[in-house]
């Protein structure tokens, strides 16, 4: 060892750095490649299944050509709409409490904690809960139970995003409105809501996107049905309800090629729907380009 200090050569460190960078790029590329592979499979196989019959006809037994998934498409739309109609007002209200009234109260803390837990709760557990609450008491699988399960999955998402979005509204707006003599509820509904409009809509869209692809909570609540009763007074909700996701599950697990093709078609439909909702939501809260 020499007494003079020699600057350490950075080669070793640079080599490590280069290796790690190459590794990270490679990992990123392969991870993203796999995810794309999935998307492209859905797109290609699904596209082959789509035609007009797919949207307008009722399902046929395996082997009989010309069947479609009209009932399942309609059923999914109705279930999602019902869940949304119930979850949006309740979620907005609870978000209002968290952001405007409760803030640091114990009720708000409990509510936030429960919302986070429920958001991480496996959706199949929510399905079991809906089964215990509605299927057991009503005596059969029904659209009500399915919509109820979806409602429970949506509620915490809407509540938390509402709170986040309302908190982004500058306080001066509230103060200005209060100074003009507005009551608190008018301030919230007319001023704060208007300022947070696009954010709230995004939260709702993302929640809808999230439930419209859910299968597990419908498996033993709405079940599935090859029929449709949309034209009765209660939309046929008291019976097992047709829906796309459980149809995908049943058809994909079946040994019939034409059913499997339809499952891919339904997958493409669901995927496109969710991507459109998600992109729309992101577009609404895009950062303004200066």
């Amino acid at each position, binding site marked *: 060892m020499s007494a003079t200090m020699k600057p350490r050569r950075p080669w070793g460190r640079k080599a490590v*750095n280069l290796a790690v960078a190459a590794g990270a790029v490679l990992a*990123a590329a392969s991870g*993203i490649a796999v*995810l794309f592979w999935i998307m492209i499979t859905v797109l290609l196989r699904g596209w082959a299944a789509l035609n007009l019959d797919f949207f307008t006809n009722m399902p046929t037994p395996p082997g009989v050509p010309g069947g479609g998934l009209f009932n399942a498409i309609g059923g999914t739309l109705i279930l999602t709409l019902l869940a949304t109609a119930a979850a949006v007002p309740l979620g907005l209200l*609870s978000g209002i409490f968290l952001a405007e009234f409760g803030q640091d109260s114990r009720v708000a803390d409990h509510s936030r904690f429960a919302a986070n*837990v429920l958001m991480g709760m496996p959706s199949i557990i929510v399905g079991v809960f809906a089964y215990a609450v509605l299927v057991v008491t009503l005596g059969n699988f029904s659209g009500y139970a399915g919509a109820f399960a979806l409602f429970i999955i949506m509620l915490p998402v809407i509540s938390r995003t509402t709170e986040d979005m309302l908190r982004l509204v500058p306080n001066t707006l509230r103060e200005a409105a209060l100074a003009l003599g507005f009551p608190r*509820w008018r301030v919230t509904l007319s001023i704060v809501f208007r300022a947070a409009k696009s954010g709230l809509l995004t939260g709702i869209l993302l929640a809808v996107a999230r439930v419209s692809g*859910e299968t597990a909570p419908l498996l033993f609540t709405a079940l599935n049905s090859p029929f449709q009763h949309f034209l009765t007074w209660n939309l046929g909700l008291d019976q097992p309800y047709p829906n796309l996701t459980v149809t995908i599950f049943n058809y994909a697990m079946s040994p019939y090629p034409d059913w499997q093709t339809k499952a891919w078609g339904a997958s493409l439909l*669901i995927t496109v729907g*969710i991507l459109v909702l998600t992109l729309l939501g992101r577009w609404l809260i895009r950062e303004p380009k200066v």
Partner: protein
Amino acid sequence: MELRLKPRVYPETTATARESVAPAAKAKPYRGDLYFKWLSAVAALVLPLIMVAIGLELLYYSFPALRKFGLHFFVSEEWNPVTQQFGALSSIYGTLVSTALAMLLAVPFSLAIALFLVELAPPRISRIVGTLVELLAAIPSIIYGMWGMFVFAPLMAQYVQPFLHTYLGWLPGLGLLFQGPPMGLGMLTAGLILGFMVLPFTCAITRDVFQMVPPVVKESAYGLGATTWEVTTKVTIPYGLVGIIGAFFLGLGRALGETMAVTFVIGNSHKISLGLFYPGNSIASSLANEFAEATELLYVSSLICLGLVLFVMTYVVQVISQMMLKRMYRAWSVGL
């Protein structure tokens, strides 16, 4: 991502704002405000009520199974609807093993992708790829499951499993993992598909945590001559460690209860096998497969008891991840 805690700056200012209008408010009390406040408070209470109700309902309905089998339920492997003998061990084992495999895949990959997105990629590519990852996190799990069954499982059966068996199967100890019929469906495939599924989710949160490290801290390390790798291991990761662990726990909770991605490919057998090629089952896949067909009270009750186990598992994982993320936000006192 899903977890956003804002710095709480509003309460104080709001309070002063209300005090400033207090005289008017005293003269004419806004009754509407009181109703509105209570209405919203009741709405906020719905969430904790639902959470408690889920726990209680599951407990209530799993009572018959617990009374019949007692604690033996949790350590018995037998699952036979014909003889009405039920035990949860194989499902719990399958849930844990498939989740462990998934995290083994998702953790290094999401760290690598987050590193790529935050430190290495040019901003434009980073933005595009980041958006794609977030979009992929929105794809429903049944799509992953279907792809796993129709596309991935045949490849596993034809190439991956024979390869692993030939080259790793002879190893003492470790080789035992790579045994079993190479038919594509089984624990290994389920774990991998589950990993693909949680990857976009954990990756997006890890990236957010990486991005939250203040640039000044990183820049000072760069200024001292550190390489990107050194900045990452010595600055970024220690700085965001709590948040990264929280992110992975969120992903873990998701993987534990994931149903559709697993049900398609796990093979559905209530037998515990050490070999990863053997079919197995998880709590969620058992529920998905058997619940709608179960008619006897004891059968339903046993299934719901499985659900209760899953509920408790995910609850604990959630609480841990909340604690971690909350601690990170508090320590940094910044919002995400």
